[in-house]
């Protein structure tokens, strides 16, 4: 079991309130991702759940029990840190065994569980090494191993992949997702990378300045962003946001169209501009377009290899039913 509820939680550091009153329920077994730009309070929120920071007001409940004043060790949560936070003086075996030793399990049980975790994470050959002798990916796996051995109520991940190189990051992302499918344990995952959020989450919580902008499944956020912030933050490349006459035509203050919802046409088209940079990925081509008169730079994704280069005129046809409309406050118009 691992349901986590935040009720009217606030956090202040001195006079600065970093989290205004916030309510959130994370369901048992759910993979929840906190995403937002750096400094948005997502890590602080995770640390409040962990108990590493005290909340200023409000309540935290874990499985219906008030955990507000419970020390981290007693909350039954496991955490994976960005810096891995492995114990450098202990072998991999001892690192993974540490939570079990603290729980006063007997040696036979500890050995059994450590070996099981090691085999799940492909660490069996490294059990007697020190963290300093491992690569970044292996260290991250040890940190995960240390988290899974004691069957926590929930896992907390604090930007666990940001210290890894790009290729490894994709691999570890899949491993963590698979681990979640296998364990079916609640996971709360903090990242600033919206691709990680989209690919891993059951539920995404988008934060800005300590405020929850929107909570929903990845596709809900993609298809119906509640405001311009979420619209601009979720999706890669970013949604094109435009104001002015073009928005007024749609009875809105701001309109947004995702790069993949604008077609490149041979001639005509509603909009046109000149190609600034064309990024040819083979499967797709991303055009960064200037001089549209609508936005400083517009990004458009074309399927396959489209042969346009810097300085060429490009004709664009946005898909009318995929245009998002927002009012003057930046809120979505239904």
């Amino acid at each position: 079991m691992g349901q986590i509820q935040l009720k009217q939680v606030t956090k202040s550091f001195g006079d600065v309130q970093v989290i205004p009153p916030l309510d959130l329920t994370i369901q048992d077994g759910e993979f929840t991702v906190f995403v937002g730009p750096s400094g948005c309070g997502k890590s602080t929120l995770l640390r409040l759940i962990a108990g590493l920071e005290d909340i200023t007001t409000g309540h935290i409940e874990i499985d219906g029990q008030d955990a507000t004043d419970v020390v981290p060790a007693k909350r039954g949560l496991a955490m994976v840190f960005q810096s891995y936070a492995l114990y450098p003086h202990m072998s991999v075996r001892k690192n993974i065994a540490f939570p079990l030793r603290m729980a006063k399990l007997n040696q036979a049980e500890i050995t059994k569980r450590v070996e099981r975790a090691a085999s799940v994470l492909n660490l069996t050959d490294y059990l007697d090494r020190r963290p300093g002798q491992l690569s970044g990916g292996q260290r991250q796996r040890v940190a995960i191993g240390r988290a899974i051995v004691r069957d926590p109520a929930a896992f907390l991940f604090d930007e666990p992949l940001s210290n890894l190189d790009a290729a490894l990051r994709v691999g570890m992302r899949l491993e963590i997702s698979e681990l979640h499918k296998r364990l079916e344990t609640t996971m709360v995952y903090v990242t600033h990378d919206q691709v990680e959020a989209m690919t891993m989450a059951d539920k995404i919580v988008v934060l800005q300045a300590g405020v929850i902008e929107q909570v929903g499944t990845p596709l809900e956020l993609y298809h119906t962003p509640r405001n311009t912030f979420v619209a601009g933050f979720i999706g890669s490349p970013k949604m094109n946001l435009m104001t002015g006459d073009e928005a007024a035509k749609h009875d809105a203050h701001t309109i947004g169209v995702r790069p993949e919802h604008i077609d490149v046409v041979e001639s005509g088209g509603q909009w046109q501009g000149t190609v600034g940079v064309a990024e040819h990925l083979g499967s797709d081509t991303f055009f960064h377009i200037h001089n549209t008169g609508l936005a400083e730079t517009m990004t458009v994704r074309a399927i396959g290899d489209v042969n346009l280069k810097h300085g060429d005129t490009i004709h664009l046809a946005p898909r009318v039913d995929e245009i998002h409309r927002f009012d003057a406050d930046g809120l979505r118009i239904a």
Partner: protein
Amino acid sequence: MSRTVTKQRKMITTAAAWTIGLIIFFPIYWTILTSFKTEAQAINDPPLFFAFDWTLENYALVQERSDYMKFLWNSVIIAGGSTILGILVAIPAAWSMAFVPSKRTKDVLLWMLSTKMLPAVGVLYPISLIFVEFNLLDTRGGLVVVLMLINLPIIVWMLYTYFKEIPGEILEAARMDGATLKEEILYVLTPMAIPGIASTILLNFILAWNEAFWTLNLTAANAAPLTAFIASYSSPEGLFFAKLSAASTMAITPILILGWFSQKQLVRGLTFGAVK
């Protein structure tokens, strides 16, 4: 061109370092040398460097007149005891200042250091009174406590600096893994800070070993350590430089040997965090 300049500069600094090193070492060298002279040769003018009759009689006399082992044992107990006690008090103190600092932490640290600016004699009277009141005069226990308190600011400061270098996330990880505060300090912080703790222990042991003000003022016969052993060969006996030197040599030899074997550790600990 620049290479030769560097080379030249290197030679100059090396020569300077050696000169300073030799100047610092000279008194110790002279003490050891004098201990092998007769009393007459010891005060010979001009001073004798090598051309004298080497003799061990000073050592024999010193050992005959006073029980070296008893003083040595007292030194070991007092220096060792005050160091261990100090470390036990300082680790939790430094932990709290390094990892859960408050607004006043810096003030507390400075205040502790400021006690070292007070001349020891300033508190001689109150401390003597306390010693008399609690029957601590000339006891090893009393000296262990006093020397521990005298050196505590240095121990706390040193440990605080080492602990500051340890990433807080590792301790948080221990907390998340279910470690109590005691277990966190015992199984995670202390082993990680071993180089720092070791050099703190060594330095503090050396300071306590050489401490002379309190050991001379608060002891008589029972608890007197090696500092008192040396002092007993100074004024009351007249000018017996050779015997005094022999006593000094015997007193500093153990700490010299300890220092020699642990110099690597000591340097590494003292420059901990300076190069990274």
